[in-house]
């Protein structure tokens, strides 16, 4: 942005800075394209001719594009695999992810509000307990849940899995929402309560509308966690009645071979909702993640 007069006066420093900026930009672009390559490779694999997929040396750019890989996902059996009930996996994933996201947002926002506004007895204990419950590894939970769900008739049921995802996502939602509510001036809801609003009204009518960015950030985390979850789903689902897309990926694995193209095709379709969600709330996502670091 420096004019010709200044650039000639400080030409050495100017050109040095210019060169540094070009080098940095080139380096960043190079690194990030390298990081994005696995994603590009999946997309390319899904539209390749099978001969190219395991070719040595590798074929980088497909010579011809084909949508054959997507056909088994839409009910057409091919020679390599039978058809995969993709629409059912997709339906199950959508119901479980959407339902559990909505419920964990509702529960987590309510609890987050109470944690952020009131210093009640046992607050710290409950808060810490909730956060630690999020750290329990899925494998440790899946063992007893498997037995309990079988006994309670919840095994292989969509809402059983959904309930588990609510429990998995509620702590992080509480964490994020507690942070967002803390950013709001306390006086707002206090003034409303002095004016005769109930606590519930102050929450729903004053604080909640102001915390919408927080809700967006929480929603994306809850959705991605449920949409991509595997450890619990693989134990708690058995049939197409409740199997989700990540579990469905295993339909492409045989005892000794893997149908990489079919798997890539399912992966591409699986990522579409995630991409839409992430792009839609990209800004809120960063805000939600870094909340509380800038204060004090």
């Amino acid at each position, binding site marked *: 942005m420096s004019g010709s007069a200044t650039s000639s006066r400080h030409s050495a420093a100017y050109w040095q800075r210019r060169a540094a900026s070009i080098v940095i930009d080139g380096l960043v672009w190079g690194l990030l394209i390298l990081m994005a390559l696995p994603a590009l490779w999946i997309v390319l694999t899904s539209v390749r001719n099978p001969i190219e997929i395991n070719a040595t040396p590798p074929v980088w750019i497909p010579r011809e594009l084909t949508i054959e890989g997507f056909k088994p996902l839409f009910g057409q059996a091919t020679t390599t695999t039978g058809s995969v009930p993709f629409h059912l996996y997709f339906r199950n994933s959508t119901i479980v992810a959407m339902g559990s996201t909505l419920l964990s947002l509702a529960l987590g926002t309510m609890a987050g509000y109470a944690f952020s506004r009131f210093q009640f007895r046992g607050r710290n204990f409950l808060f810490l307990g909730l956060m630690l419950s999020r750290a329990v590894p899925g494998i440790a939970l899946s063992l007893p849940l498997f037995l309990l769900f079988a006994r309670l008739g919840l095994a292989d049921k969509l809402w059983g899995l959904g309930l588990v995802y609510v429990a998995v996502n509620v702590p992080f939602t509480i964490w994020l929402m507690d942070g967002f509510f803390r950013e709001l001036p306390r006086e707002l809801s206090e003034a409303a309560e002095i004016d005769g609003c109930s606590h519930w009204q102050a929450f729903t009518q004053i604080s909640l509308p102001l915390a919408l960015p927080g809700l967006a950030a929480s929603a994306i985390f809850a959705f991605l966690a449920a949409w*991509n979850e595997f450890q619990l789903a693989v134990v708690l689902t058995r049939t197409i009645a409740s199997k989700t897309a990540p579990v469905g990926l295993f339909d492409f694995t045989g005892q000794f071979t893997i149908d990489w193209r079919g798997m890539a095709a399912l992966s591409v379709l699986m990522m579409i909702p995630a991409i839409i969600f992430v792009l839609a709330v990209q800004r809120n996502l960063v805000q939600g993640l870094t909340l*509380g670091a800038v204060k004090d």
Partner: protein
Amino acid sequence: MNLSQVSASKAAAAVTVRRRQSARLPGRFISGMIAPSMLVILFVVVFPLVYSLYLSFTSYTLLKPVTNWVGLRNYIRLFSDDVFWLAFGNTLLYLFVTINLEYLFGLFLSQLLARTVRGQSILRTLLMIPMMFAPVLVGFQFRWFFNDQVGLVNNLLMQFGLISQTIPWLVERATAMFAVGVADIWMNTPVMTIILLAGTLSLPRELYEAAEVDGASGWQKFIHITYPLLAPFTTIAMTIRSLDVARGFDIVSIMTGGGPAHRTELLWTHVHRTAILDAKFALGSAMSYLTIIVTIGFTLYLFRQLLKARLVE
């Protein structure tokens, strides 16, 4: 009454209101707001954990589902289980190495990105791509890349003449751990980068300008300004990462399954093998208890800084 008296009496009134509120908390409202979350956690997390604690003191297996009380036998057996301790060590090593490397890469990338002038928003979108991948998918993808016969990595190395024979990446312990680590780092570096980038961009410009006036080099500015001021963001990045430590299971179980011959066994894969594949449920439960303690210790360690700000005296 003059203006200062008015504001003073208003402030006093506000103080009394606040005092009265803290004296009489709306207990029913608070419990009503928190109870639903607690109930779900109790049903899905606490109750099953109590149940598996009970099972860990019995001889329960999937083939013989009877709950004979055996006391500490499973735990004693565990302490003499070499594979368990191998997995234990592997897990600590794995978490230590991957999380630190992810932090370093994230820091490096964030510093570069903060200085990028061309196409920042496209770059940020590119950066988020790995976040959209299901961890299982990352596992399958990298298992394929590191496949010894048809894998991309071997293919590339051969094409450029760097190796003459294919490397069996997922067979030897060192190379298999390396491959799994690469997948883990690929998946988790973006979150670190995004948080550290947001932090870097929020730092006050004046500090850098003052440092430039004093003739500080780029490296000095980083060490004396950026790095210390990023501390709160580092804490957040580590915390968020620590919540996902167990996601490494998805990757490892797909890429190697802990094998061959326990070479890449982590606690999670070992629990899975024992409890599900070998059907020794009670032993697996005992193991998963020790796993929980490790994970929670890890989370508490990373979480303590952040919690300080959220817990009240």
